[in-house]
């Protein structure tokens, strides 16, 4: 090994700027959150140390638990529902010829490139009860009875919000599966065919195991992005009506910036970070076992 590869000055110049910026904007706030989670504070005046009271309050806060349960509903829907559809479509798209599949993939990914603010505004308008597209379609096909104030009604708000999330996120899942499936070497497919595998066993025995790392990546993304879901809801229902569409990240934001409960907000932040890490590690561990056993 040449000494140049160990030049400390060079290493410091290369590594420090990036790491310092990460420490300022990512590590420091976590530490600050931890510290401030033990006080009561409105942002002005004196902080009042209150021990673990904020955490005890979280444990008993029904809206906090509502927001967590909504996060898990969203995780469930994206992991099982969105992924299955995306996988099946990716499977078909990999079989219909390059040209056609390129066209479809390009179209399916368009919503994913749009900004959240645009997408949310768009769907708020589509769901609008007086001039929205959805109610107009229902009127045209004679289903006036199904017309709703989609985002304003407690029974449809959560479903509508989840629909928007999937409408935009679907393209990503499809893209990942597709790029996974097309990397499976042709020899593997051929060998399976020689062994008499039909389409179904080809997928369950060869292709799915082969793209396990891709599936793991998608599930991690599904889980973390469900946890982080906020802007869309902030701009559409603001958690309402009556907290039915409350999500963890939004609840944290409202506690902090709407109600100026800095101590409580920071305690939720701490729980949030812990939850994000635990879930990510859990998924990695689960998959590590599965990947080994193959």
């Amino acid at each position, binding site marked *: 090994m040449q000494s140049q590869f160990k030049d400390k000055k060079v290493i410091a110049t290369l590594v420090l700027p990036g790491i310092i910026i990460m420490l*300022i904007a990512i590590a420091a706030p976590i530490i600050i959150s931890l510290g401030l989670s033990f006080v009561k504070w409105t942002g002005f005046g004196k902080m009042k140390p209150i021990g673990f009271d904020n955490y005890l309050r979280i444990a008993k806060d029904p809206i906090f638990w509502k927001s967590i349960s909504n996060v898990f509903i969203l995780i469930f829907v994206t992991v099982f529902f969105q992924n299955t559809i995306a996988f099946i479509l990716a499977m078909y798209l990999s079989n219909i010829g390059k040209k056609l599949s390129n066209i479809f993939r390009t179209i399916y990914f368009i919503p994913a490139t749009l900004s959240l603010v645009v997408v949310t505004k768009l769907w708020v308008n589509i769901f609008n009860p007086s001039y929205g597209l959805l109610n107009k379609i229902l009127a045209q096909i004679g289903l006036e009875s199904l017309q709703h104030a989609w985002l304003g009604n407690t029974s449809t708000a959560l479903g509508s919000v989840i629909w928007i999330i999937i409408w935009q996120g679907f393209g990503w899942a499809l893209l990942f599966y597709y790029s996974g499936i097309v990397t499976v070497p042709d020899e593997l497919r051929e060998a399976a065919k020689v062994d008499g595998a039909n389409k179904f066993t080809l997928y369950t025995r060869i292709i799915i195991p082969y793209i396990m790392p891709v599936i793991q990546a998608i599930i991690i993304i599904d889980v973390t992005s469900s946890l982080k879901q906020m802007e869309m809801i902030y701009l559409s229902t603001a958690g309402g009506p009556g907290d039915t569409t409350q999500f963890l990240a939004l609840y944290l934001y409202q506690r902090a910036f709407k109600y100026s409960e800095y101590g409580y907000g920071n305690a939720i932040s701490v729980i949030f970070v812990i939850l994000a890490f635990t879930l990510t590690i859990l998924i990695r561990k689960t998959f590590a076992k599965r990947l080994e056993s193959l």
Partner: protein
Amino acid sequence: MSNDTNLIYKDNLKERRKKNISKTILMIVLVFIALLQLFPLVWAFSYSIKTSGDLFGPELLSFPKNPQWVNYKTAFVDGKILKYLSNTLSIIIPSVIFGTILPFSLAYATTRMEWKLKPLVWTVVIAGLTVPIHTTLLPNFIWFNKIGLLDSHLGLIICYIAFSMSFNSIIFSGLLSGIPKSMEESAFLEGAPYRVILPSIIAPMAVTGFSTVAIQTFLNHWNEFIMANTYLSTESKRTLPFSLILFDGQYSSNYAVQFACMVLVALPPLILYFAFSSKIMTGVTAGAVKG
């Protein structure tokens, strides 16, 4: 034809017909989903060239005889697009430049050089991928206020770079680990220092990585809303998404102009996507799977 071959022939025909039917169904499904993705956008565009009164008609989709292109002019002026756009660019350009160079340097040092703290630093980088932005909003709001970074473009730039470090470092590290070490070794023999080797020998080998990372980072920042919304409180410092938010208040009944504004904000990323779609797609998948 003998009976046997006739049977086989019939069987094949049946199978082929079955295949054709399932192919047609498949096509219908694919087209239906494509419509689901496209129709809302076309619908929004059609509204953007109507008058606000036209919106309440019963038809699903129609293009007016007299397209109101003036809506775009109104959106551009009343949405303060120019002001917000220049803010957005003055934040995004440094964020993309440093959000590409710093991860490249970090990835270089961690994949190709030898030092003690390497595993620790790399763990921090990977962990950064998991931290939700929202958990940093409140504490950063508090301490940026103390150190004068709140309500400044610099504060936002620092956050944008920080949150693109992990993902971009991972992509570069994947690329760099594939380059043979003899590249640098022969340059060392000729006495070239690192500040020459990195930009003139190594960086060009990772040039596809640079474009992928830069485009992806650009799109992320272009669409970023919540940090800008939280840290920037002065109206005149805010970024492009706020041109849409503006219409919530004072112009809330001018629907058609809102739609025009939506189209204006959505257009640049769309153009970028169509120009570079292959780069965006390969880069993103590669990085995410490795991470």
